């Protein structure tokens, strides 16, 4: 049985990451905030009395289900309005390529990074852009394993799939990420193991 303080501490520690997970998946801040809020409410309402040690897995499960629910709702809406899709403006031209922010021999328009913080920002932008290119299930498995620190069993429980599927998703995600990042001069050292 957990106390309100334990739930509060857990949510405070998990909310920023949860928001990032949702943003990587839905690519919209407002929608991501709604999903995180919905997930927090569900955790508190349905599992608020569970031991605090179970919160991380339960919360991830709820979060991933909420993201999938969002896509299901979106799919239904898209099907209804698909006839009008040709009237929507193309947004690909507005997308920012993190490589444009880097200075190299081909791109002298941007100033060189003045300090390590700026370099980290660039690195983060490149990694996040690469993560967004992964298929949803692969990204989910990769982030749960290597960011959240879940083991294969916990990841499988959170994703609602088998451990074998988790291993396959992680392996493919790591290979794809390594390939994308290699092109930007970043080596994932464990990808070749």
């Amino acid at each position, binding site marked *: 049985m957990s106390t309100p303080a334990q739930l509060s501490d857990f949510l405070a520690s998990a*909310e920023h990451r949860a928001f990032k997970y949702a943003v990587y998946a839905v690519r919209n801040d407002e929608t991501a*905030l709604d999903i995180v809020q919905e997930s927090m409410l569900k955790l508190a*309402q349905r599992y*608020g009395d569970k031991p605090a040690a179970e919160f991380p897995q339960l919360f991830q499960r709820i979060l991933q289900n909420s993201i999938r629910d969002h896509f299901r709702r979106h799919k239904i809406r898209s099907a209804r309005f698909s006839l009008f899709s040709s009237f929507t403006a193309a947004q690909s031209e507005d997308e920012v390529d993190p490589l444009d922010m880097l200075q190299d021999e081909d791109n002298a328009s941007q100033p060189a990074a003045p300090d390590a913080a700026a370099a980290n920002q660039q*690195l*983060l932008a490149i990694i996040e852009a690469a993560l967004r290119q992964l298929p949803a299930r692969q990204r989910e498995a990769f982030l749960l394993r*290597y*960011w959240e620190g879940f083991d294969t069993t916990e990841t499988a429980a959170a994703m609602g799939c088998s451990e074998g599927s988790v291993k396959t998703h992680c392996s493919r995600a790591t290979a794809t990420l390594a390939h994308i990042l290699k092109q930007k001069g970043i080596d994932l050292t464990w990808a070749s193991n």
Partner: protein
Amino acid sequence: MGIKLDRKQLAAVLDDGARQLPPQVCARLSAARQSALQQQLQRQPLQAQLHHLVPAIAAPVRSHPAGWGSALLLALLLLAALWQWHAVESHDHGALDLAILTDDLPVEMYVDRE
């Protein structure tokens, strides 16, 4: 760039990103957390009542000589009532489906019922 990243370093970079959220996003997350905590607080008193209620019902059943028999009879009666209600419900649904399929819905189906 020529950078090598292991798992921990990758996680650290992503953690940095998660720490640098815009203030308005942090405020929304904080408000969502408070709202969720309120839900947990509202739920707890109800559970506490249930914890008291179950022993209160169970005690007379245990102490009375015919307690268990009466409880079993009551449970059977409830089960029968539930089965009967379910049978009537499913029959109603069947009739309604048939009416919809044959385009022969009675007028009262269009009237909201209390």
